[in-house]
């Protein structure tokens, strides 16, 4: 059973200094097991200016087990899968501590964006590019930030709502959004063409 008291408190704490940290955690639905984290791209990196969304799923044993985090926004980064958004970060795996919180974990993810670890890659293609052609890596990462992390200020749920209001059924909207990496315009094209 998840310690909802703690999760509630974490959400409160997080919303208190949202201006200072830029890190936001909002519940998806009403049961607090699925949350959406938002982190700004760190300045001085190819991710600067982007807003990255992270799907958070809390396991039953949270906070004794780490939260499951996955990028919902497409990112070009050696330690983040460009396909699935899976994050390779020790504190989300064996180095998790119950003293960490969603906010500190998201801060660590943000720090990972500014300090890639290409020798322990999640995405081998990106890591190879990072090693062999750093300039291309930087420009690709910047392009992905422009393309996927800035498309809209809307959250995924709002995009879904928008498209559902246009008359598409919700499950199809969700799968279309997922397939195009969260861009509502691409999703709309896809929905119209199918």
């Amino acid at each position, binding site marked *: 059973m998840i310690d909802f*008291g*703690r999760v509630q408190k974490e959400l409160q704490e997080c919303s208190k200094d949202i201006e200072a940290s830029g890190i936001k955690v909002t519940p998806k639905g009403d049961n607090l097991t699925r949350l959406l984290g938002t982190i700004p791209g760190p300045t001085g990196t190819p991710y600067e200016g982007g807003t990255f969304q992270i799907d958070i799923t809390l396991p039953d044993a949270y906070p*004794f087990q780490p939260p499951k985090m996955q990028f919902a926004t497409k990112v070009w980064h050696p330690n983040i899968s460009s396909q699935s958004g899976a994050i390779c970060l020790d504190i989300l795996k064996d180095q998790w*501590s119950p*003293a960490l919180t969603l906010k500190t974990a998201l801060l660590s993810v943000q720090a990972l964006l500014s300090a890639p670890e290409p020798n322990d890659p999640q995405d081998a293609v990106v890591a190879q590019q990072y090693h062999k052609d750093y300039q291309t890596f930087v420009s690709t990462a910047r392009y992905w930030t422009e393309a996927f992390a800035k498309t809209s200020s809307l959250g995924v749920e709002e995009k879904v709502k928008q498209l559902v209001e246009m008359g598409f059924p919700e499950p199809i909207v969700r799968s279309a959004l997922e397939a195009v990496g969260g861009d509502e315009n691409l999703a709309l094209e896809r929905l119209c063409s199918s």
Partner: protein
Amino acid sequence: MVSDSITNASIPCPNVKDLGKKKRANRSAKLKQCKLDVRREQWLSQVKKKGCGEEWTGDGLHRDASNGSSENVESRRERGRVEANGPGSIHHDSDLELSPSNSPISLNSILGSNDSGTNYSGSGSSSSSSADCCSGNITEEDDEGGDDGCLDDWEAMADALAANDERPKPPSCPPPPQDLTASNGSGMIVGGENLRSGTRATPAAANTRAWRPDDAFRPQSLPNLTKHHSFPNPSDRRFVNGGISWAGCNRIFNVPTSCPICCEDLDLTDSSFLPCLCGFRLCLFCHKRILEEDGRCPGCRKPYEHNPVEGEASVQGGGLTYRLTRSSSLMARP
């Protein structure tokens, strides 16, 4: 460092002020007190016969089952007490340091907020788990069993301290005004003490302290004097009689008021529980849960040592046995 045995140390105090408290005690507390008395007698007689706590454990379990309904009330009271006692005990310390004659008053005011149920401090943990209550009681009762002796010691101690403190005063210096200002809140603890040790011979200066640091009777709740001296900012040492300004001390002494893992308030047992040398505190429930899983301290990620705090064992054997028996009984629970 605050230790588990804080509860042992404070046991005699409520007895001393029994009269004042009984007026305040509500009905359920009286009932509880009654039961506790009966249990104590039972236990004493059993110890005389057997000299062994085995049977008592069963008895304690039975008692807890029958008392289940009043446990909630007690746990709430216990919580309140922790909050009242946390800063309060520090306040109490500085009181004693300056003028031991003040101590009964501050003791009364602090402990007066407890109903008589808290006379039996060991049951603080019983609010959360019945099993640890009874095993905790075994060692806890050792203190209570010798209650009368303990009481005498306490009073004798207080008398001796008062006498000790008054003896050097009249001939050597006219410090009453100093004491007055100090206890009125305008003086600073360390400043005052330095002043005195400057004017007096060294042994006399030692007497200004209510308890020596190595004194066995020194309550564990008292912070180390060295801590006082190491405060970077002298304004932190300002002593205000109301004790309100000491609320910030929780931060200074780095004792969180709620468990950082489960966000529940820490009760007295929890806040005196120091499982790791890194200083990371958490409640006993979260600690147990972590021990069941990977057993690493959330603060430093090092594995918890088998024997939580070794330093404490040398200070107070009773406190340690108490904790160990309790944790073993926790394991036994389903």
